[in-house]
């Protein structure tokens, strides 16, 4: 999943999201095959600019401006933390999934989130920060995770709504990151987006099944969509007029589209999908605007977004307490594994 000031998917293509991920992967290879960028690597800033201009990738040991490095660490770390914290809202339903099939699927999905966190931590570490520092910064609150995970999962239908809306918004946000100028991040995002599309479809299937079930099941699905719609819209971050990191991030080809552009794309996609589900999007002012060739819609409550980011969401304290407990409960395992590794080395040395 993702963090709330990230850019999203590649625009304009009417190919599916997976098609866009594959196009990004092909572009990455094509740029690499165009050969080396002209210029003198000793002229550091000029060479960095030339590589970005040529749509090639910056790699870990290349020179890069400090602000580029810092910004990427912040963004990738926040993204990684979101994957790790993001296991909690769904994890709480593993024991209560309605069938063995659903349970196995949910387990696989939550395991994927852990994997996504690891790909991203590994990408962040190539920028010179250590895993231990990143974990500490999450645990002591110096770095954030996406505010969406501070909302509770009250019913089984919430697992469906998270897959459809939260993972859907994450994909729209993340597909453009597959073209990010920093190589390790772009490669991690390609992997993640390919896996994320299973997440979105499994959620959609859950909602579709509930929506076409008993009246109570249908009502449960609608209730979940009612609660998750606006927090999902808020995942795209503050409106463009208030977004602080955007311009530089666009110039460096980290971010490719503005928050509002991505939010609009997400709304336009969801309307048709909601129709197929037989569920209503909880926005009385949602309507097609033929002049703009896009839907008009009600913006999410950005004051609420800011409150939740600052720590005052329904589950902030619970999520952090759980993460800290899991980390300290696992300490003995890490210690035992380290002791065993040290002992094995002694045996080899003797």
């Amino acid at each position, binding site marked *: 999943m993702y963090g709330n000031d990230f850019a999203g998917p590649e625009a304009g293509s009417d190919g599916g999201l997976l098609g866009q991920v594959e196009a990004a992967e092909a572009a990455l290879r094509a740029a690499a095959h165009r050969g*080396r960028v002209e210029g*003198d*690597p*000793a002229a550091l800033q000029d060479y960095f600019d030339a590589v970005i201009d040529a749509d090639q990738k910056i*790699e870990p*040991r*290349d*020179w890069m401006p400090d602000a580029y490095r810092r910004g990427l660490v912040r963004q990738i770390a926040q993204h990684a933390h979101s994957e790790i914290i993001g296991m909690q809202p769904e994890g709480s339903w593993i024991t209560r999934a309605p069938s063995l099939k659903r349970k196995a699927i949910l387990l*696989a999905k939550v*395991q*994927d989130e852990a*994997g996504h966190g*690891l*790909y991203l931590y*590994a990408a962040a*570490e190539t920028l010179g920060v*250590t*895993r*231990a520092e990143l*974990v*500490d910064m999450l645990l002591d609150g110096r770095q954030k995770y996406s505010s969406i995970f501070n909302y509770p999962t009250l019913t089984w239908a919430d697992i469906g709504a998270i897959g459809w809306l939260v993972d859907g918004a994450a994909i729209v946000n993340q597909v453009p990151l597959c073209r990010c100028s920093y190589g390790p991040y772009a*490669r*991690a995002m390609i992997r993640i987006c390919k*896996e994320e599309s299973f997440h979105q479809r499994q959620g959609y299937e859950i909602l579709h099944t509930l929506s076409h079930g008993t009246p109570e099941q249908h009502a449960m699905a609608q209730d979940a969509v009612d609660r998750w719609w606006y927090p999902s819209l808020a995942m795209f971050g503050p409106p463009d007029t208030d977004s602080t990191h955007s311009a530089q991030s666009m110039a460096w080809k980290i971010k490719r589209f503005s928050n509002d552009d991505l939010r609009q794309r997400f709304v336009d996609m969801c309307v048709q999908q909601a129709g197929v589900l037989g569920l209503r999007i909880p926005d009385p002012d949602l309507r097609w605007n033929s002049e703009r060739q896009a839907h008009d819609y009600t913006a999410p409550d950005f004051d609420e977004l800011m409150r939740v980011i600052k720590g005052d969401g329904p589950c902030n304290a619970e999520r952090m307490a759980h993460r800290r407990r899991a*980390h300290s409960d696992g300490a003995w395992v*890490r*210690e035992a*594994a*380290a002791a*065993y*590794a040290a002992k*094995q080395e002694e045996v080899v040395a003797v």
Partner: protein
Amino acid sequence: MTGEPLFEVFVRPRRGLSHTHVGSLHAPDAELALRNARDVYTRREEGVSIWVVPATAITASSPDEKDSFFDPAADKVYRHPTFYDVPDGAKHL
């Protein structure tokens, strides 16, 4: 969290292909690194073989000397078959 060593992970996707770098991970020792690599990088049958290598065991060329280090190759165009003129009529060259 202690600083467990970093391992670079290489996966052979299928028989007949080379191992390719796919990412990295931390583990207390190589054996656990291999198991973790299986869980992190091959959940969807992405590989038939995995190598894990301690990151400290890798010696890398420096990007700062990108030009000078690889320069010797740049002026030897005669190493490529396209350098040569093939006389008309010569076949199977």
